């Protein structure tokens, strides 16, 4: 170690000073001597220097000795360490793999955490961007997710120039974009004219959208393309500016290209195209015939503002309050403001605008991945800790086993520091090797992690260099610590004591430390096992929430309007496809509905119920439009009244009409009708005093998950699919046997109706459920893998310690057996140690496991998990596995004959 330390500058400087002092002493003495003999001072100095042969040269020669020696030692240590490691391949492989896994996994995961959760938008001063969010009842219809506001409100916020250096709004959408012969669905952002200016983004080519593009509805629509789309689809052609593209088959002029690093406000879902918000109804309506850009009660935009330089979020929040209150007040007096009950009006007027940080942009994916990633990061850190403990334990054991060797080397004259330095070289080699392996593993692990957590193509496996360096540094530190324990140990070795002890194995101190490490490992393992149990349990609960038997069910979607069919033609195609699918052999039922279920979204309507009295539900009720036979096809029982049938289907060619019948679910009945049968009661769409209630409730269906598997006790209402315009939708097909067997026939049936009509999302319902639980399944798998790995690691650790203890106590056991102790008694003597360790580990982990259970219950899933049985099961599994690991060496020791055990000495 002293040799390694010589590299440190301050130690080198000290050595240099000492050398100078040493040489000066010599020269001064010689000069004194010569002067005593009568030589003059100047002559004496000259002669002394001459005899000495040049101070600088001597200093250089001494330095050479130091460096040569140091390199020599290092080379010898490295060779010695490599030989030593190669002699014990098991030890070396275990340690290397542990370190590689730790470094690789933590690099991969921390890189993703950085990419997904921490990175700021690549725009001008992202730290000053904030999002404005409505808190309270906005009495608005909504399109999209997150905090949505209306376009007029966004424009009015722009007038608060003393608070904001600009306000923008945006709505993500998907459009089909045609350039030349290419036609494909792409992500687009509908943005206000202020968007690029407020963000401070400059064009790559041409110009970006500005306020003149977003002045009024209609006009000649323009668009900006992303750099990536321009490069990959248009070959980077410079004449793109001014060219025409088709957005959902409507012509749009390209005015410019955005810079490469800017992909929109959702960094995880890159945008291909930006369109002015004003052009939305014309170019990319949010639904058929949507025209509510200027509607104050239509919430569909995320509003982002740039705070003025000296305004804090809190100040903005405060300053907005009176202004917003006045705006709301003015709203209520505007024509067209919905007539609502007084308490709803009060709730509306009490609404406030919140100001939230938005430096990282807004990503729905981030929201979905934030917690999973943090869970995974936590698990990885635990695992890393665990594997470090294992490596530490291994090095400790190795240190203890080598005490004899080390003591002998010291007796031969090697300095203590020299031996310690040599051990440190060994652990540094391990760390370096583990680091290199981890570096190789990180990209692979990163890819695996992403494929497990999401099916999004937009996330690239990514290894952050800084993170990698950090992990390498951490591993070097870990190895230094692991190496340090035996070094300290060796440092304390008294020579005589060691040599005397050599035949009788190592000290108690090392064993106690190793036992403590194993207790720590067992505790961490119990935590991970509990986590795994909770995740698996939650997943099972989610699956149970489907609400009907999804096996044998297939689904697919059609959108005839996307290939240019007009309303009447689209409807004819839909009816024809349904008829043909029902005729496919093996199909026992088929129905159409307006959307695919379990996609995380839904539409809601305000309703009025006319039972014995008039009831206005407190919030908009989710609704879905379904065709005849829908519930029978799903296998969701209609528990009262009837299913939709031919009576509810509008005849072909007949004009669209208002809804006349509805089916509600059991939660609806429980929540709004106190459990009374609603069949025969009436509904109205709207919540105003004058709302007509002319829709008859014809049936009640059992609850099933419609938007997501987390929805429990959600009131729902179903209206007939065919009453309104029905030009697109999702088909649900029940098949005898495996649903996949009908896929070809389904495609053929659609092709017979119109060969150009694309079939999208053709999959089994089980697939749909898997997609809806993708993250949960990935987490359950990952955490289970963590738990099993942890169990293996700690069992290896426990086994190691027990083998060691048994070897130590073999003689004692031999004596006891010779004196007549039974074998089980001897085994117990050893296993008692293990039981104590397991008990201690469990006791340490229990409070943390319980807290983990509460966390999962409260936050992770929003569904109830029962922690206690899971913890009990995890503890049981751990105890069982650990006991087996302890029993094996104990039994072996107790099986040796007493004479043999005694002869071992």
């Amino acid at each position, binding site marked *: 170690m002293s040799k390694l330390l010589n590299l440190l500058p301050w130690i080198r400087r000290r050595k240099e000073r000492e050398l100078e002092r040493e040489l000066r002493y*010599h020269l001064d003495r010689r000069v004194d001597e010569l002067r005593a003999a009568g030589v003059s001072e100047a002559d004496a100095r000259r002669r002394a220097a001459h005899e000495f042969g040049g101070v600088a040269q001597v200093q250089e020669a001494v330095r050479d000795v130091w460096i040569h*020696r140091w390199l020599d030692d290092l080379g010898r240590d490295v060779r010695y360490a490599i030989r030593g490691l190669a002699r014990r391949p098991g030890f070396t492989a275990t340690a290397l793999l542990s370190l590689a896994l730790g470094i690789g996994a933590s690099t991969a995961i921390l890189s993703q955490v950085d990419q997904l959760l921490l990175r700021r938008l690549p725009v001008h001063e992202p730290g000053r961007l904030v999002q404005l969010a409505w808190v309270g009842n906005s009495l608005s219809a909504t399109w999209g997710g997150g905090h949505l506001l209306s376009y007029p409100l966004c424009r009015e916020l722009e007038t608060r120039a003393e608070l904001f250096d600009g306000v923008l709004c945006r709505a993500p959408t998907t459009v089909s974009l045609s350039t030349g012969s290419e036609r494909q669905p792409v992500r687009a952002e509908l943005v206000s004219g202020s968007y690029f200016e407020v963000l401070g983004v400059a064009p790559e080519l041409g110009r970006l959208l500005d306020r003149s593009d977003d002045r009024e509805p209609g006009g000649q629509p323009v668009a900006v393309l992303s750099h990536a789309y321009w490069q990959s689809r248009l070959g980077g052609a410079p004449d793109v500016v001014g060219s025409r593209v088709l957005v959902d088959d409507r012509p749009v002029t390209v005015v410019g290209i955005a810079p490469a690093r800017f992909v929109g406000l959702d960094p995880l879902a890159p945008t291909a195209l930006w369109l002015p918000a004003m052009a939305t109804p014309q170019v990319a309506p949010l639904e058929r015939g949507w025209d509510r850009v200027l509607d104050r009660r239509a919430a569909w935009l995320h509003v982002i503002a740039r705070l003025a330089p000296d305004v804090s979020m809190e100040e903005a929040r405060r300053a907005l309050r009176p202004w917003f209150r006045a705006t709301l007040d003015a709203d209520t007096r505007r024509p067209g403001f919905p007539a609502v009950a007084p308490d709803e009006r009060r709730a509306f007027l009490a609404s406030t605008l919140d100001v939230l940080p938005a430096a990282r942009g807004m990503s729905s994916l981030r929201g979905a991945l934030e917690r999973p990633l943090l869970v995974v990061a936590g698990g990885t850190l635990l695992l890393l800790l665990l594997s470090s403990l294992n490596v530490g334990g291994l090095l400790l054991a190795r240190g203890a086993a080598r005490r004899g060797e080390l003591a002998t080397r010291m007796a031969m004259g090697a300095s203590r520091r020299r031996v310690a330095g040599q051990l440190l070289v060994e652990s540094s080699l391990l760390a370096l090797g583990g680091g290199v392996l981890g570096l190789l593993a990180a990209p692979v692990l990163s890819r695996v992690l992403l494929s497990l957590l999401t099916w999004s193509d937009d996330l690239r496996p990514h290894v952050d260099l800084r993170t990698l360096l950090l992990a390498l540094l951490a591993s070097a530190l870990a190895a230094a610590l692991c190496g340090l324990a035996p070094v300290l140990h060796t440092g304390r070795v008294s020579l005589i004591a060691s040599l005397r002890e050599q035949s009788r194995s190592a000290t108690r101190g090392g064993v106690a430390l190793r036992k403590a490490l194993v207790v720590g490992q067992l505790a961490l393992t119990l935590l991970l096992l509990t986590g795994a149990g909770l995740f698996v349990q939650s997943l099972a609960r989610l699956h149970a929430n489907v609400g009907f038997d999804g096996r044998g069910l297939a689904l697919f979607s059609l959108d005839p309007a996307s290939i240019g069919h007009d309303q009447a033609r689209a409807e004819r195609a839909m009816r024809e496809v349904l008829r043909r699918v029902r005729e496919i052999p093996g199909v026992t039922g088929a129905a159409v509905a307006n959307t695919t279920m379990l996609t995380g979204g839904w539409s809601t309507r305000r309703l009025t119920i006319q039972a014995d009295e008039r009831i206005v539900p407190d919030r908009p009720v989710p609704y879905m439009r379904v065709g005849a036979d829908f519930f029978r096809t799903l296998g969701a029982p209609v528990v009262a009244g009837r299913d939709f049938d031919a009576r509810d289907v509008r005849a072909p060619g007949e004009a669209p009409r208002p809804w006349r019948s509805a089916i509600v679910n059991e939660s609806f009945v429980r929540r709004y009708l106190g459990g009374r049968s609603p069949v025969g009661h009436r509904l109205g769409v709207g919540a105003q005093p004058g709302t007509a209630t002319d829709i008859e409730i014809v049936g009640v269906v059992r609850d099933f998950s419609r938007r997501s598997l987390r929805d429990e006790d959600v009131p729902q209402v179903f209206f007939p699919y065919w009453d309104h315009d029905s030009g697109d939708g999702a088909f649900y097909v029940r098949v005898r046997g495996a649903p996949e067997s009908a896929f070809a026939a389904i495609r053929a049936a659609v092709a017979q109706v119109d060969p150009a009509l694309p079939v999208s999302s053709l999959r089994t319902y089980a697939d749909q459920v898997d997609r809806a639980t993708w993250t949960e399944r990935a987490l359950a798998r990952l955490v289970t893998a963590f738990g099993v790995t942890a169990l293996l690691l700690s069992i290896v650790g426990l086994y190691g310690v027990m083998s060691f203890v048994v070897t130590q106590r073999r003689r004692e056991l031999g004596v006891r057996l010779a004196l007549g102790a039974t074998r089980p008694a001897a085994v117990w003597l050893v296993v008692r140690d293990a039981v104590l360790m397991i008990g201690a580990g469990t006791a340490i982990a229990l409070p943390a496991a319980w807290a983990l259970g509460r966390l999962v219950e409260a936050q992770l899933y929003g569904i109830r998990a029962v922690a206690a049985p899971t913890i009990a099961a995890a503890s049981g599994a751990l105890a069982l596995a650990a006991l087996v690991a302890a029993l094996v060496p104990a039994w072996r020791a107790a099986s040796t004959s007493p004479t043999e055990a005694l002869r071992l000495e």
Partner: protein
Amino acid sequence: MPSSRFPIPQGTLDMLILRILSLGPGHGYGIAQRLQQVSRDAIQVNQGSLYPALHRLEEKGWLRAEWRESETGREAKFYSLTPAGRKQLEVEKESWNRLATAVRLIFAEGG
């Protein structure tokens, strides 16, 4: 005058230093003087070359060094033999004797 004295044979300086220090601890200047005295000025040591040798022997663990007060009252770096150094001296003496004997024998035969 220098030509009348031996240049010191390669590798012999280490042995001589060990030998001198086997009589008791000493600093560099003392060792140089001792070397002159003991060899009755027959051996020429470039005094500076003593120090790389001392440091080499210290790094090898044959010498240990400490600063303490010298006979003049000033602090000097004193070297002394370690057990390993003592052993090494025996080894060197032994091999030197064998070499010297062999050389003498060869000259006697040739003479």
